[in-house]
C-alpha cells in the first residue's frame, strides 16, 4: 500500500543562532544529520481545533473524576473511530482499524491522560469553610489566595489566607501547610456548605484558556494539549497498516493507574505517549548557566530519552528523530532525569512494550496558569501525524 511520501525540504542557508540555540545545532558531523533547517511554518490550528482545546482546558477533571473531559473526548471522536468503549476505571479506549484488520495486524497504542492535578474536599468546618487535600503534585506554593471552582456545579470559592498586613513578620515568611488552608465558598455555616458541596468532591483552578500572542495560556495544558493532539490524530483522514488504539487515560497524576490497565488490555506492539513536560527555561537567579531547564519553549516537541519511570526505546527515539529531520520539523530532547509519564506503566505491561513519550513543553505545570507555545503544539501534532503515517513494523526491528 503506497505510503504518503515524506517531504525532504530543500537545503536552505543556516539561520543565525538564536540566543537559546537548539541542542541540534551542536550535533556532530559524524551523526550525519541534515543541515539545520529553518522552521517550516507549522500548520496553524483551525478555529475549531483551538475551540476544542479551550473546552478541554476549561473543563475540570481532577484525577479519579475525569467525567467532564471524558464527555468532550467521546463527543469529539465518536464519528471518527471504528470502536470506542469506556473501561472499568474510566479510560476511553478507541480503535481505528486498518483496512484489512485481522488478529495478526499489529496494534499501536497512543495514550494521553485526561486528568489534571487539583483538590479533593475532605471536610466541613463549622464556619462554612472547606478543608481540602491535594490530588496529584500541585505546586503548594501557588495556592494561597487563588480562586477555585468546587464540586460538579463549579461553585466559585477562594483558598483562604490571612491578609498580609495582619501577619507578624515571622508568620509572613513561614510556609503554610495545606492542612492549614481552607476553601471559602461564601457561606457561614457547615450546614449551609453541605447543601452546596459534599466531601470527596473535587475542585480545580479557575483559569480561563486564552491565546496570548504566540502562546497558549490556561490551566491543565498538562495534559489537555495531549488530549487535543490525540483527538486530532484520530480525526486525521489517514489510513494505517496497523490498528490504532487511542487511550485517553485516567489517574496519571496519582500514579499512572489508568495507563497500567490500558496497556494490559491492549497489549500493543509499541506505544507513543503524549504529555506536557516542564520548561524551566528562564534564566537562573544567579548568573550561572541554567543547565537544568528540562525543556525549552519554542524549540518544538520534546522527545524523551529517559525519565524516572522509563528509558525510552532507542529505536522509537531514532524513528521520531528521523521523521522530524526528514520533514524539517524542530524538536528537542527533554533532559534525562526525574518526572514521568504514562509510559512508565505502559512499557512494563505484560511482556514489555517498546515505548516513547513526546511532550509539548510548558512553563509552570501543576500551578493555576501554564504557558506553552502554539507552535510547539502544532509541531507536536505534525510530528505525530507523520510518525503514524510512516510507521511500519520495520521501525521496531533491531
Amino acid at each position: 500500500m503506497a505510503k504518503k511520501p515524506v517531504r525532504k525540504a530543500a537545503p536552505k542557508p543556516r539561520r543565525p543562532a538564536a540566543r537559546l540555540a537548539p541542542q541540534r545545532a551542536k550535533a556532530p558531523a559524524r551523526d550525519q544529520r541534515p543541515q539545520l533547517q529553518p522552521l517550516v511554518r507549522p500548520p496553524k490550528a483551525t478555529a475549531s481545533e483551538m475551540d476544542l482545546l479551550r473546552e478541554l482546558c476549561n473543563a475540570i477533571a481532577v484525577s479519579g473524576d475525569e467525567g467532564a473531559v471524558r464527555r468532550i473526548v467521546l463527543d469529539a471522536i465518536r464519528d471518527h473511530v471504528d470502536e470506542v468503549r469506556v473501561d472499568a476505571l474510566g479510560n476511553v479506549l478507541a480503535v481505528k482499524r486498518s483496512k484489512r484488520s485481522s488478529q495478526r495486524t499489529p496494534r499501536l497504542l497512543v495514550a494521553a491522560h485526561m486528568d489534571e492535578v487539583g483538590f479533593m474536599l475532605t471536610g466541613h468546618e463549622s464556619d462554612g469553610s472547606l478543608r481540602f487535600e491535594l490530588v496529584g503534585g500541585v505546586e503548594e506554593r501557588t495556592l494561597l489566595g487563588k480562586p477555585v471552582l468546587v464540586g460538579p456545579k463549579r461553585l466559585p470559592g477562594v483558598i483562604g489566607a490571612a491578609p498580609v498586613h495582619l501577619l507578624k513578620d515571622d508568620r509572613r515568611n513561614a510556609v503554610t501547610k495545606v492542612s492549614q488552608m481552607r476553601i471559602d465558598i461564601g457561606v457561614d455555616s457547615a450546614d449551609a456548605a453541605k447543601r452546596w458541596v459534599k466531601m470527596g468532591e473535587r475542585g480545580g483552578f479557575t483559569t480561563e484558556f486564552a491565546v496570548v500572542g504566540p502562546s497558549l495560556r490556561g490551566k491543565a495544558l498538562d495534559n489537555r494539549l495531549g488530549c487535543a493532539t490525540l483527538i486530532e490524530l484520530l480525526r486525521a483522514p489517514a489510513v494505517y497498516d496497523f490498528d490504532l488504539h487511542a487511550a485517553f487515560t485516567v489517574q496519571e497524576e496519582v500514579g499512572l493507574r489508568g495507563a497500567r490497565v490500558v496497556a494490559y488490555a491492549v497489549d500493543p506492539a509499541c506505544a507513543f505517549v503524549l504529555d506536557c513536560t516542564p520548561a524551566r527555561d528562564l534564566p537562573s537567579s544567579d548568573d550561572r548557566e541554567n543547565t537544568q531547564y528540562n525543556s525549552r519553549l519554542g524549540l518544538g516537541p520534546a522527545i524523551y530519552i529517559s525519565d524516572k519511570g522509563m528509558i525510552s526505546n532507542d529505536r522509537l527515539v531514532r524513528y521520531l528523530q528521523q521523521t522530524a529531520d526528514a520533514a524539517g520539523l524542530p524538536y528537542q530532547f527533554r533532559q534525562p532525569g526525574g518526572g514521568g509519564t504514562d509510559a512508565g506503566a505502559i512499557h512494563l505491561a505484560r511482556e514489555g512494550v517498546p515505548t516513547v513519550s513526546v511532550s509539548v513543553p510548558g512553563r509552570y505545570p501543576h500551578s493555576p496558569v501554564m504557558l506553552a507555545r502554539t507552535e510547539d503544539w502544532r509541531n507536536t501534532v505534525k510530528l505525530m501525524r507523520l510518525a503514524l503515517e510512516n510507521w511500519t513494523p520495520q521501525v521496531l526491528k533491531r
Partner: protein
Amino acid sequence: MKPLLKKLVEAYGPSGYEGQVRDLIRAEIRNIPDYITMDPLGNLIAVVKKKAKSGKKVMLSAHMDEIGVMVSHIDERSYARFQNIGGVFPLHCVGSRVRFADGTVGVIGVDEKRDDATKIPALSDLFIDVGATSKDDCPVKVGDAAGFYRPMEELGHRLIAKSMDDRVGAAILIETLRALKSTPHEVAFVFSVQEEVGLRGAGTAAFGLDADLGIAVDVTRTGDTPNGLKMAVELGGGAAIKVRDSGMIADPRIKDLLVQRAQEARIKTQLEILERGSTDAAAMQIARGGLPAGCISIPTRYLHSPSEMVDFRDVQACVNLLLAVLQRPIEI
C-alpha cells in the same frame, strides 16, 4: 572463565543500552541452548528444553546492564552535565573515567566553587570532560549514555573490575549453560535488561516465561571491610544463599533447596541477608500470579564503584551450586 569474565565486565552496557553486551553473550552461547530469543524490552533468553515429565520450568536471571551516566546538557565549552542511570554515588565519580557507546572517553570533574566544598558534591556539581576543544567538535550530545571505564585486574584469588554487578552473574549463567550436561528441567537462562533502574526487564521476562520457580544470580555486599557493615557475608566464604533483602524475602523452599544441594555436593556457601538493595528475584516473585523465587549471590566489595572485588572461588562455587540444583529433580 576468567577471559570470559574480562570480556563481559569491560563491555559497554548501561541500563537501556545493553546491545553490545547482548551481542557478546549471544556469541558466547551460540548453539548451546535449544533456542535463543529476545523479548520486547531486550532481555536475552536462552532456553534448554524440558527432558522429564516431572521437570520444572526454571527461570534464571542475571542482568546485563550496568550503572552509568546520561548526558543532560552540553554547555558553551562542551562540558557535559549528566544524570545518573541507576545507583551512582557522586563519591565514586570525581576523577573517574566514563566511556560512551562509540568509545568516546571522558573524565568526570567537579565544580571547584560550589555551595559547600567540604561536603561530598551532588551530581549536579559534576560534569564530564570529553576533551572537546571547541563547541563544534563535541562528540557527545544530550541523551548519550556512558558506563564507567576501567580494565579488570587479578590479585591472586581476587578480581576487581567495574560492573562485576552483574556481569559476574552473567558469566556464571554462561558457564553453567556450558557445563550443564543433562537436566530434567526446562531452564530459561535470562540475561535481563534495566535491573539497575528498577528490575524492569526481569518483571516483563517473568511474565512472558510463566515459570514454576525463579533464581536470580546477582552480587551482594560483604561485611568484611574495615569499619564495615555488620553483615555476615565475606569474600571467600563461598556462594551466598539469599535469605532476604530489601525487596524480597526469599522463598524458604528455594533457600532450603540451595542449602541442601550445597551440602550434598560439598560446596562452600554462606547465608546472606542484605539490608539495602535487591535483585531480579524480587520482580520474578510477584510476576503474574507469583512464583517461588530465590537468589544465589556473589559476595562483592565496593559495590557500585568502578572497582568491585570478588573472590574467584566464590564465583566457581556459584556455578557448581547452580549445576547441582539443575542436574537433580526439584520438589517444591
